[in-house]
């Protein structure tokens, strides 16, 4: 395959650009910005078209190469393949649907169907990306130069392994293994599959228990059904037995009823015989119960009508007592009012005696009276005498006061008083002394003033003293006369008082003698008057007491009760006697009435009893009451027998009515042995109970088993889910294993398929270009190149950028050799030697020229020095 020419109508920055390609090396020397890379992309687009629009500009080639100036987007390219020239015409729209493709066979100038729009794929056997990665060596950009080793190495590796593959192979395998481990761990028992398996084992075990329970349940249910049937049979037999028992019981019942009827008849007969015997024992007949009761009551009442000894004794005692008091109260018993009057008199008498005894002065008053009688033994001063004494006493007091207010003649009124004159004199002396002292010291002004003040004070003192002396000299003669007159008057008055009061006090009078005498005289008179009043009162009480004593004594004497002593006690004794007399009198009357009534009743009752005895032919002796009581017992017995007989007759009638059918029926033949049937019944019931108990236990067991068996649906569902989970997990794990295996195999196959050819070509190119011995170059499975330097294999990172570019150029051609077996492609080099020095550039260009015989090479370069 060989490119012939191309024409770019509009593609990116290129417009109406044509280019013709040499069969070997085509060097396109153009400055930067010309569009060399765009031309390379145009060529690729002619073969592969443009991919779908991508969101990122770097990948969105439709947008990236949209014509800058507008116009038809596309162009054509002429190539030769197997001796035939073809022209590809392509235009591009915004979307692939708007793209056009046409292929012309230039031999005939007609459209050719030799290739489809996927002509690149059909020609080279590589997709667009792989084609680009292998046949297009881009210019080394600045950022790539700095790490060209890694970047170019990665790009070379992408030739056989997609970029994502390279980066993510290990991660992919790891992720797949992790997924696989989550299902089924490579080691140990981790993962959901073993977990499900374990759960399955548990569930199967539980389910087996359920199934066992289910089997046991079926067996138990069969047993239960059998047991229930057997129980039903037993119950049927029991029912039959009960029927037989009922028949036997009916026969026994009939016999019992007949026997009971016979016993009733015998009892009635016996009662009748007893009644006959009883009536024969009383030939006069047995009185009715009421009459017997009346007779007994009459006899009892007659007995009770006899006067009792106590009554008779009480009656006699009452009579005797009446007889004893009859003389005292012959004239009658004093009335209560009389007793009341006499009791009132007695109380008044005692009060009068007490008042007469207590009518006298008190002890203190009597003592005071005695003292005052002694004080006034000489007589009591009368009122005139006392008035005179009081006048003398008042006059004496006044004179003494006046005397005390009149000063004696030799006394000066200023004695004892501090005179103002003396003070002024002392002040004057001090001022004069101070003034003189100041004058001697030279203080003439102050000394003069003080001296002047001293003189003034001195003069003032002298004036005051003189005036006082003059006043004293004028008052002294008048006071002396008055004092003398007063002293004389006092002496006279003292003498008169001494005369009047000395009978009471003697020579020595107390200071208030007149007042004392006057006070005691008044007190003495009061006591004397009181003693006279008390004495009169006592006399009046004594007289009243004597009158009352006479009256009481007369009352007591009238009933023979007067005697010396206490009137009250005598009166009380008289009243007790009167009361006893009245009581005895009434009791005697009552006893008399009772005795009379009893005698009357006794007669009546005896008449009733006699009539009863005569009616029934009884002889009532002393034990008549016993006879009547026997008849009463006989009557009661007869009544009982009659009632019993009536009841038996009633019972017999009723019993016969109730059991007439049975009693009238002939006796059935006895076909069942009742005790045996009852024994059989007990045995059957025991058996039924045992079977019922067994069935109950069986049902309990069934319930327990059913509880276990009822878990079966849930366990089965869980087991099914677990098994599904287990199977799915295991299947997925196997699939994951296979996926990992396929991935590993793919990688190994990819590597080994291309590695040998790549390595061989690479060594050849490298030797031709650098003379490097093949054994010094190592290419690993990752297509990473290492070279030996100083005995050690070193990665490309240890070499210069130029050396690296040369190595990678060799690598690129080696890959092209390996990749394109069928159709040799053209190679586009976009100024790849910018890092090479002149020597290496020369070598590289020489290699290009050499390879131009093998490949069609389009070498795009911007620098003349790197032109081939």
């Amino acid at each position, binding site marked *: 395959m060989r490119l012939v020419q191309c024409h770019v109508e509009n593609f990116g920055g290129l417009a109406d650009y044509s280019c013709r390609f040499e069969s070997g090396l085509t060097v396109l020397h153009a400055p930067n910005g010309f569009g060399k890379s765009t031309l390379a992309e145009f060529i690729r687009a002619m073969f592969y078209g443009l991919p779908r629009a991508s969101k990122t500009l770097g990948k969105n080639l439709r947008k990236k190469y949209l014509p800058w100036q507008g116009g038809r987007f596309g162009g054509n390219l002429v190539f030769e393949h197997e001796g035939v020239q073809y022209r590809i015409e392509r235009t591009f729209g915004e979307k692939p649907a708007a793209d056009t493709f046409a292929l012309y066979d230039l031999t005939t100038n007609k459209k050719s169907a030799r290739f489809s729009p*996927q002509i690149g794929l059909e020609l080279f056997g590589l*997709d667009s990306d792989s084609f680009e990665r292998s046949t297009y060596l881009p210019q080394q950009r600045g950022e790539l130069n700095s790490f060209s080793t890694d970047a170019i190495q990665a790009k070379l590796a992408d030739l056989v392994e*997609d970029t994502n593959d*390279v980066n*993510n192979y290990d991660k992919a395998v790891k*992720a797949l293994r992790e997924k696989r481990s989550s299902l089924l761990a490579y080691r140990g028992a981790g993962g959901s599959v073993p977990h499900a398996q374990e759960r399955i084992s548990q569930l199967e075990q539980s389910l087996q228990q359920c199934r066992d329970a289910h089997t046991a349940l079926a067996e138990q249910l069969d047993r239960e059904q059998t047991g229930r049937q057997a129980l039903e049979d037993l119950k049927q037999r029991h029912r039959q037995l009960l029927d037989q028992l009922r028949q036997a019981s009916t026969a026994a019942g009939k016999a019992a009823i007949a026997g009971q009827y016979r016993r009733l008849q015998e009892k009635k007969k016996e009662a009748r015989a007893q009644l006959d015997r009883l009536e024969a024992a009383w030939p006069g007949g047995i009185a009715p119960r009421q009459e017997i009761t009346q007779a007994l009551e009459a006899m009892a009442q007659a007995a009770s009508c006899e006067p009792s000894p106590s009554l008779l004794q009480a009656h006699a005692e009452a009579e005797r007592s009446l007889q004893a008091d009859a003389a005292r109260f012959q004239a009658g018993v004093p009335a209560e009012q009389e007793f009341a009057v006499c009791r009132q008199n007695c109380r008044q008498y005692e009060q009068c005696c007490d008042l007469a005894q207590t009518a006298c002065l008190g002890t203190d008053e009597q003592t005071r009276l005695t003292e005052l009688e002694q004080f006034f033994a000489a007589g009591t001063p009368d009122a005139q005498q006392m008035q005179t004494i009081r006048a003398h006493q008042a006059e004496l007091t006044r004179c003494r006061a006046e005397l005390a207010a009149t000063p004696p003649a030799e006394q000066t009124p200023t004695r004892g008083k501090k005179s103002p004159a003396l003070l002024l004199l002392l002040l004057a002396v001090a001022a004069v002394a101070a003034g003189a002292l100041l004058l001697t010291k030279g203080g003439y002004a102050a000394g003069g003033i003080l001296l002047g003040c001293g003189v003034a004070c001195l003069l003032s003192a002298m004036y005051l003293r003189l005036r006082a002396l003059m006043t004293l000299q004028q008052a002294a003669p008048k006071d002396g006369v008055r004092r003398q007159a007063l002293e004389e008057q006092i002496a006279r008055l003292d003498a008169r008082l001494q005369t009047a009061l000395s009978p009471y006090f003697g020579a020595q009078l107390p200071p208030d003698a007149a007042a004392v005498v006057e006070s005691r005289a008044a007190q003495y008179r009061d006591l004397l008057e009181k003693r006279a009043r008390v004495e009169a009162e006592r006399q009046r009480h004594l007289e009243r007491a004597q009158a009352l004593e006479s009256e009481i004594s007369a009352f007591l004497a009238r009933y023979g009760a007067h005697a010396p002593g206490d009137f009250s006690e005598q009166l009380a004794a008289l009243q007790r006697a009167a009361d006893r007399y009245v009581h005895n009198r009434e009791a005697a009357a009552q006893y008399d009435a009772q005795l009379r009534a009893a005698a009357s009743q006794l007669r009546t009752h005896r008449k009733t009893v006699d009539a009863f005895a005569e009616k029934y032919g009884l002889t009532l002796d002393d034990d008549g009451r016993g006879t009547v009581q026997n008849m009463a017992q006989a009557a009661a017995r007869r009544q009982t027998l009659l009632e019993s007989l009536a009841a038996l007759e009633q019972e017999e009638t009723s019993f016969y009515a109730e059991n007439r059918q049975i009693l009238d029926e002939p006796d059935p033949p006895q076909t069942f042995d009742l005790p045996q049937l009852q024994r059989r019944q007990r045995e059957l019931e025991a058996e039924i109970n045992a079977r019922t108990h067994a069935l109950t236990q069986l049902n309990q067991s069934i319930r327990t088993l059913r509880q276990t068996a009822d878990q079966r649906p849930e366990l089965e569902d869980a087991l099914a889910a677990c098994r599904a989970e287990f199977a799915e997990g295991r299947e997925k794990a196997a699939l994951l294993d*296979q996926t990992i295996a396929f991935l590993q195999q793919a990688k190994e196959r990819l590597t080994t398929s291309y590695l040998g050819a790549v390595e061989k070509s690479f060594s050849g190119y490298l030797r031709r270009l650098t003379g490097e011995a093949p054994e010094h170059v190592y290419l690993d499975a990752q297509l990473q190149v290492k070279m030996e330097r100083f005995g050690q294999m070193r990665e490309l990172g240890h070499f210069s950028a130029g050396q690296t570019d040369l190595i990678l150029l060799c690598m690129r051609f080696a890959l092209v050799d390996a990749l394109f077996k069928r159709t040799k492609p053209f190679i586009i080099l976009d100024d790849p030697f910018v890092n090479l020095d002149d020597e290496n550039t020369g070598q590289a260009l020489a290699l290009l020229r050499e390879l131009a015989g093998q490949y069609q090479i389009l070498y795009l370069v911007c620098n003349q020095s790197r032109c081939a």
Partner: protein
Amino acid sequence: MKFIHCSDLHLDSSMETNLPPEKARQRANEICATFRRMAAYAAERQVTAVLIAGDLFDTARVTGKTADYILSVIAQTPSVDFLYLCGNHDESRRAFAGRELPENLKTFGSEWRYYRYGAVCIAGIEPEEQTDWYSALRLDERETNLVLLHGQEATQRGPGLVCLPQLRDRGIDYLALGHLHSYREQKLDLRGRWCYCGCLEGRGFDECGQKGFVLVEAEDGKVKTEFVPFAKRTLHEIPVDISQLQTVSQIGQAMRSAAEGVAREDLVKFTLRGAFTTDTQKDLRFLTQTMEPDYYFVKIKDETTLRLEKQSYEHDISLKGEFIRMVMASDQSEQDRQTMILWGLQALSGEEIVL
């Protein structure tokens, strides 16, 4: 005179819907509750008898609790007779063993048994295959005859089969069948019809659509039937083609559109169909979780195929291309190949591997 024809309740059976355990139990209880509702319906509508055409229970899974419950429902509906025919899944005798049966629960046996309600005769048999039970059927053509059987309708005799030709022109007015879980009714002969009432409640997504019982009205020798939808919940299987869909929201929206009109209390199974690419966001777990709040239960079945064009990997000189080529060349099943490719590509692109 009215009768209810129901069958195939399969009480205590496993739920075939992959319901979580709690919901499975709830669903099982709901089927019991539906039986009670049906009994109440029968009492309220003065139905004479409920004809249970087999498979009331399910094999040996019947629990004592359920048996007690059913008996109590029957006992508490004394105005209605329950004529119960055992089916191939029933173990009713075991279920009711040791229990007192209500008087209004009538059963059948290995010989024809007849129950009469006025002029209506109901016959049923739980046949033993070695016997010629067809010829043993005796019906009075003057009566209205309802026959109760359990089995697969067929034109030949055989175990578990109901040979319809053998029952033609025998005086049957209504052949009440049980065994199939969907309602079907067809002509038996000039006189009668045969009918599968279907199950009372759907239990699995093979029992989608309306479920209930058949109300049979016998009047003056004529029989009228009416299917009465009665299930508490309906199961739906809804296909969704995701071929043209890329994102999970687009797929979810398509599922919702497809399920429009489905009641919230129903159970829905979405079946994803069509082809998807490696770029398709087909996250079943996410889709299930986002759809679950809208329905009682949601299940998503993936029947999609990976759309992998041969040209996209045939000449891809990369690990991915080599991997796909190797997997596609393997003798694994198509589904396994798709799964492995999907997982491998997810792993290589660093995406979450969706198992």
